[in-house]
């Protein structure tokens, strides 16, 4: 920390043993190390022995059409990287990071269409041989543990497969538009020490590639995928060691096929985040002790029953979770007659989040979950409460729900442990007030209700209304912002 380097009058840094100066310079981006190395000849001499190389030219977007000086800047970046790699004398390299070429997300969204904004032309050009030399550099040194590449080029070539046979690698992060063909056709992968694998932006050419990779990584703890799948019809991820899985499936949803299958066998997973727009048949092994799960799905195809079974399967697999988020159209899909019979109990659930915006009859689903979450402490509506009715516009939901069995007999007992409620995007509609009324009546242990109003709503007025509602809890504070 800068502030801690209070005045000292001797050069303690230069008198450190070389390997410690090296360790210090290896703990900053290579750009900063280059600047610091210019401070004296001694510092300069240690620069050649850096054990971490971190070249980052982001977040420059190269819109070369509009900014010719950025093309020149990239030439300087190229010269810098070439020089440093050429001069590097360290036989040992522990971390290699290379980032240039701007943000690909905009391009990816328009995979089949040229975007009017940034497109291929906006990324820098680099000869394939030069780029491969850069990427392969860490593989030529001993002991590399972490490789992090964020590379987007105008004319993408093929990713060197050597990255996937690097036995010392523990962390591999790739965010690139380079192609995976050479990797896909490798007969085998050698990643016995890999703990973290992150794949962003990449196009996955064959469905079995990821499954094969994962089974060749016996120590894999984290898999983070936000890629484009060429097919994405039959995906299997099986790993007893996996602790964290982030899966964001992007595929061309015109491939509407009933045979789609998602197979997840990760019984020891602690953290699960799933984003998808397709109803797929899935087979998900029950997770023993998940901590947090987030389902962010939209069902673009399939019958209501198929969609329901698909999402329910996922919910069942994570039913031991402590923190659950049901986003996008989960509630709409789960609003199906069989929910009451099929929904499991959530014995460990302490924190529950709902997105109600894509479902008009979310009430039933919300209450079925509340009924089955005996130790729930925090309830959140981060995207607000959907006030639009489609089917029963004249019925206040709390009458609809709470005047029928089994709700009536459970009155005041629905949420015995609920301590905190958070409602965002509040608009002071009748339906929102009715929900708050119901929750206040049913949460005898409530400590805080936090309501965050939408911009055009006066918090003072909202607060007045809410504070008039009867409360089962004597210790609850209501905050409206």
């Amino acid at each position, binding site marked *: 920390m800068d*502030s801690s380097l209070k005045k000292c009058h001797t*050069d303690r840094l*230069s008198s450190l043993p070389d390997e410690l100066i090296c360790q210090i310079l290896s703990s900053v*981006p290579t750009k900063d190390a280059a600047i610091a190395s*210019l401070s*004296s000849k001694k*510092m300069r001499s240690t620069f050649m022995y850096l054990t971490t190389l971190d070249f980052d030219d982001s977040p420059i977007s190269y819109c070369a059409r509009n900014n010719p000086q950025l093309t020149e800047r990239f030439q300087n*970046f190229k010269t810098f990287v070439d020089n440093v790699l050429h001069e590097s004398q360290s036989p040992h390299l522990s971390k290699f990071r290379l980032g240039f070429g701007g943000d690909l997300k905009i391009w990816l969204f328009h995979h089949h269409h040229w975007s009017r904004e940034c497109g291929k032309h906006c990324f820098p050009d680099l000869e394939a041989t030069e780029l491969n030399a850069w990427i392969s550099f860490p593989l030529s040194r001993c002991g590399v543990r972490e490789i992090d590449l964020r590379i987007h080029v105008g004319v993408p070539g093929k990713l060197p497969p050597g990255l996937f046979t690097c036995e010392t690698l523990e962390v591999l992060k790739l965010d690139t538009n380079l192609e995976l063909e050479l990797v896909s056709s490798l007969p085998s992968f050698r990643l016995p020490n890999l703990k973290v694998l992150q794949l962003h932006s990449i196009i996955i050419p064959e469905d079995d590639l990821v499954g094969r990779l994962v089974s060749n990584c016996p120590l894999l703890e984290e898999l983070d995928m936000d890629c484009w799948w060429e097919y994405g019809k039959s995906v299997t991820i099986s790993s007893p060691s996996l*602790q964290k899985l982030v899966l964001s499936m992007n595929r061309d949803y015109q491939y509407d096929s009933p045979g789609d299958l998602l197979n997840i066998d990760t019984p020891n997973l*602690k953290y699960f985040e799933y984003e998808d727009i397709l109803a797929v048949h899935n087979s998900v092994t029950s997770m023993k002790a998940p901590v947090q799960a987030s389902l962010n799905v939209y069902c673009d195809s399939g019958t209501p029953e198929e969609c329901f079974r698909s999402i329910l399967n996922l919910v069942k697999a994570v039913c031991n979770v402590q923190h659950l988020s049901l986003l996008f159209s989960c509630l709409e899909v789960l609003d199906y007659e069989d929910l009451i019979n099929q929904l499991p109990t959530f014995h460990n659930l302490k924190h529950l989040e709902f997105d109600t915006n894509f479902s008009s009859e979310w009430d039933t689903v919300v209450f079925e979950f509340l009924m089955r979450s005996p130790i729930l402490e925090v309830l959140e509506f981060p995207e607000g409460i959907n006030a639009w009715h489609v089917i029963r516009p004249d019925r206040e939901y709390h009458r609809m729900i709470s005047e029928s069995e089994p709700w009536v007999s459970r009155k005041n007992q629905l949420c015995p442990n609920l301590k905190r409620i958070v409602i965002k995007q509040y608009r002071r509609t009748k339906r929102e007030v009715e929900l708050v009324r119901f929750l206040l009546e049913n949460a005898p242990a409530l400590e805080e209700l936090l309501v965050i109003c939408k911009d055009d709503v006066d918090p003072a007025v909202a607060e007045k209304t809410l504070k008039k509602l009867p409360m089962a809890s004597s210790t609850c504070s209501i905050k409206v912002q």
Partner: protein
Amino acid sequence: MAETSSKKIILKSSDNEDFEVDEIVALESQTIKHMIEDGCADNAIPLPNVTAKTLSKVIEYCKKHVDVAATKPADASTSTAAGVAGDDELKKWDEEFVKVDQTALFDLILAANYLDIKSLLELTCQSVADGIKNKTVEEVRKTFNITNDFTPEEEEAVRKENQWAFE
């Protein structure tokens, strides 16, 4: 909490001050660990390269890290809520721990190196490294009192080679 096996080790600083610590705390240092294994630890372990002032800071660090490791629930991995909260708290403690003046910081680096305490070495080196980030050459020289022994021509040549870094 008193434990059944709390063997004590005596560490002697370069200025002849004795520090009594639990063996498990002393074992955070690989150097001391090897000395104990080699049977050199019957009396006090002399540490001629570490002053009392620095040694007491090192011991404070090792104690804290041993304590935190001991109170971690058995099944808490870094991805459980409890595990993360514990790690965050320790991180904050570490951040406060290295808020010392430059002299003390470099003394800690040398001590961590000599005593072979990897996490302390990483922490202290990163702290110095943070003082290098986003600075010009002149600022780096000033912060660390480094004498420039380049000729203007030599300096210009290196700058030119690394033009991108200086933009």
